[in-house]
C-alpha cells in the first residue's frame, strides 16, 4: 500500500486545466486548412490531383476543401508550389452540419450547441455508447483516451457507457462497413429517445480513405441522422472534447470555459 502511495505522489497531478486554458498541441500539429485562391497560378491543379480522397475541389473561380473528407495528410500542401493551401494548428474543427465542414478561405470554428430543450435533458449528464463500424482503432484510441486522467471526461458529466440502453446517444467511428451496418442500426435503435449521434473521424463522416468502396457505406449519415461531425484522421483528443463541450454549450467563443451562469442554463 505504501508503495502505491509513493508512486501516486511521484506520478503527480496530470489532469489538464482545459477548458480554463487552451491546450498545448504539438508544434507540427495539422489542423484546420487555410485556402488562398489568389495565390493560385493559372491552370495549376496540383493540390487537387494529389489529394487522396478528393477533398480539395478546384473550380474556375472557387476553391474549397471538405474537412469531412480531409485526412490532414501533407499531400496538398507539399504539392502546392505557391502556398495557396496550408494547414494551420487550429484544433477546433467540429461542426453540427455537414456543409459547415467545407472550407473556402479560412475555417471558422462554428460548432453550434444543441437546442435548448435537448440541452435541458443532456446538458449536465451525457452518456454515450461508442460503436466502431470499420474504424482502424486510431479514432477509437483517441476517444478512449478522453477517459484517462489527462482529459478526465467525467468532470464534464460525460461518460462512455457499456450498453446502448444506458446511453443518450452513440459515438460512431469508422466508415460503416457493410458487415457492421446492421449492428450499428440495432445499437442506435436500442438507445432510448431523445438521442444524439456523433460521427468521429474522416471515415465516420464520409468514408475516409475507403470512400467509394463497395464494402463500406461512406459514413454514418448514410444510415443515421448525425448531430455532430468531428473531422480528423484521427481527430486529436482535444478536437473531440471541444466538439462534445461545444454541443453542450460549455465553451465560449474562444473555445475556453463558458461562464458559470451560461453552464447552468444547460
Amino acid at each position, binding site marked *: 500500500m505504501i508503495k502505491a502511495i509513493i508512486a501516486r505522489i511521484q506520478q503527480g497531478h496530470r489532469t489538464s486545466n482545459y477548458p480554463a486554458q487552451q491546450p498545448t498541441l504539438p508544434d507540427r500539429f495539422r489542423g484546420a486548412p487555410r485556402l488562398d485562391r489568389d495565390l493560385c497560378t493559372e491552370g495549376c491543379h496540383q493540390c487537387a490531383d494529389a489529394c487522396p480522397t478528393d477533398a480539395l475541389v478546384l473550380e474556375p473561380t472557387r476553391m474549397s476543401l471538405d474537412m469531412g473528407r480531409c485526412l490532414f*495528410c501533407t499531400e496538398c500542401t507539399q504539392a502546392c508550389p505557391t502556398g495557396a493551401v496550408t494547414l494551420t494548428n487550429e484544433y477546433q474543427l467540429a461542426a453540427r452540419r455537414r456543409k459547415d465542414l467545407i472550407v473556402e478561405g479560412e475555417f471558422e470554428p462554428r460548432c453550434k450547441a444543441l437546442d435548448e430543450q435537448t440541452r435541458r435533458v443532456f446538458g449536465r449528464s451525457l452518456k454515450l455508447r461508442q460503436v466502431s463500424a470499420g474504424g482502424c482503432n486510431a479514432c477509437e484510441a483517441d476517444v478512449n483516451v478522453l477517459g484517462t486522467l489527462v482529459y478526465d471526461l467525467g468532470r464534464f458529466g460525460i461518460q462512455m457507457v457499456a450498453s446502448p440502453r444506458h446511453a443518450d446517444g452513440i459515438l460512431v467511428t469508422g466508415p460503416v462497413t457493410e458487415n457492421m451496418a446492421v*449492428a450499428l442500426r440495432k445499437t442506435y435503435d436500442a438507445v432510448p429517445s431523445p438521442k444524439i449521434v456523433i460521427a468521429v473521424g474522416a471515415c465516420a463522416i464520409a468514408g475516409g480513405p475507403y470512400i467509394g468502396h463497395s464494402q*463500406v457505406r461512406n459514413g454514418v449519415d448514410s444510415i443515421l441522422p448525425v448531430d455532430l461531425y468531428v473531422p480528423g484522421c484521427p481527430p486529436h483528443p482535444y478536437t473531440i472534447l471541444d466538439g462534445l463541450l461545444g454541443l453542450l454549450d460549455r465553451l465560449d467563443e474562444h473555445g475556453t470555459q463558458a461562464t458559470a451562469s451560461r453552464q447552468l442554463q444547460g
Partner: protein
Amino acid sequence: MNQVEQQRLAGSETKPAATGQSILPAKRALNGQAVLLTDIPNLRIESFRQSLIQAPSQHRRVAAFFGVGEPDGVRLYAVLAGAGEGQLFVMSSLVEGNAFASMTAECPQVHLFERELFEQWGVRPEGHPHLNPVRFENPRRTHDGDVASSIGIADFYRVEGDEVHEVSVGPVHAGIIEPGHFRFQCHGEEVLHLEISLGYQHRGVEQAMLMSPVKRWLPYMETVAGDTTIGHTSAHCQLTEALGDSSVSGRAHALRAIALELERLANHVGTLGGVANDVGYLPTASFCGRLRGDFLNLTAALCGSRFGRGLVRPGGVDFDVDADQCRSLIERLDAAQRDVKSALNLLWDANSVQARFEGTGALTQQMAEELGLVGVAARACGLERDVRHDFPAGFFRLAQIPVSVAQSGDVFARAYVRWLEIQRSYAFIREQLQNLPSGPIRRACNSLRPDRLCVSLVEGWRGEICHVAITNSEGRLASYKIIDPSFHNWLGLAVALRNQQISDFPLCNKSFDLSYCGHDL
C-alpha cells in the same frame, strides 16, 4: 502463354536445392529483396503441399500463403520463414481444377490461410476441418459464380451435453473496442471451446490496392491497423522501394526505426495498463493510460500526428529532427520512462496481481509453434521469434535490439515480455536520437519493376507484419497481400482460453491485444 509461364514450366521443378537442408526447391530471398517471378519454382501441388507440411520440422514457418488469379486458374504462393537461416523461401503452384487436399490437419498453422483461399478464390481445401468464412466477404467467389454471404451466419462449432451452454458476445462490445464475435462453449464457468468469428471491419484494402490510384496507397497502409501505422507503412515502403530498386538514406532508416519503437512503447504501455485494469488494479491502469499518451505525443512531436500519420513515405520519411528537437525528445522520453517504471513496478510487486496473471491463459511452446504464433505471444512461450533479429532490414541491420522472451506462456509472460521490450525500446530510441546519421531524409523513388515478387517483414508491436507484392509485366501491382500478426495469433487466444474461467476472457484477450481491422483488412 507469356515468357514467365514458359520458363516456369520449362523445368524449374527439377532445379536442385542450394543446400542439403532444403529438400524441396524454393527461391531464397531476404527480407525486402525483390525476386524475379521466373526464379520462383512452379511446383506440382503435391510437392508444394509437402514443402508446407514439412516446414515446421525444418524450423520454418508459413509467413504467407495466398492465391493469385491467372488465366489458367489460381496460383498458390507460399512464403516460408527460416528463422535460423535469415532466409525466406518462396514457391508457387497452379491449382488444377478448383480444389487441393487440405494441409491443416498436418500443419495447423495454415488453417486460416486455407479458409481465406476458399473465401477469396473459391479454391476448396478438401478435408479442412472447419471451413467457415474468414471475413464474410461479399459476394464470395466460388467456382460456380459468386454467392452472397451474410455476416454472422455460419456453421459455428458447438459442444453439446448436459449443463453445457453457449455464451455469444459481440460484434458490439461493452468497451471502446473494435467489433468481433466470440462464441464460448461453456460447462459452468469453464470454457471448453472459444470460436472467434471476425470480418465486421472488412473494408477491402487488398483489392483496393490493385484498383485504386497510387495516391490512395499510403492512406490505406496508415489505416490497415491504425494503431500500427508506422509498422504497416514501413513494411509497405520497404516493399515498394525494393520493387523499384530505390535507396533510402541511413538517417531515414534511423528515424523509421525510432518511430517504430515509439509505437511499440506507446502500445505496450497501453496494453499493460489494460491488463492491470482487467484484474482491477487501478493505480497502474490509471497511470499507464496517461503514459501511453505521453509516448503518442512524442510521435506527434516528430510528425504532428499521435499515430505517425504522414511520417513514413516511399524513399524515406517526411519529417526531420534537429539537435534541439532530439534533446527535447530525449528529455520527455526520460521523464515518461521514469513514470512507466514506477507504474509497472507497482504491478510486479502486487501479489494479488501476480496471482491473477500466473497460470492464466497459458500456451505451451509446442502449441505456439504448431499454431505459428508470432510476436509477443510467441516470445512469451519461449520462442525467439523477432523480425528485427531474424530477418533484419533497414536500420536493424546496423543496430540490434535483444530478443525478449519468457517461458511460461501465460498472461504473466505476455505482460512481462512487453515490459522487457519497453525497456529495450527505450534504450534503443535514446541511443539512436543521440547518434542520428546525417544525410537526406527522403530520396526520389523509381517506379516498380515488372514481373517481380517481394516479401517485406517488419516487427510491429504485435509481431510480424508481412506484406507481399507481385508486379505484372507492365510494372503494375498484380497482387498485394497483407498479413497482420493478428491473423496468426487470434487462434492462439482461442486455444489459450480452453479450460479457463470465462471471466478471465477480458484479461486473456488484453494480454494478446490483437487487431480486428488488421485481420479483417
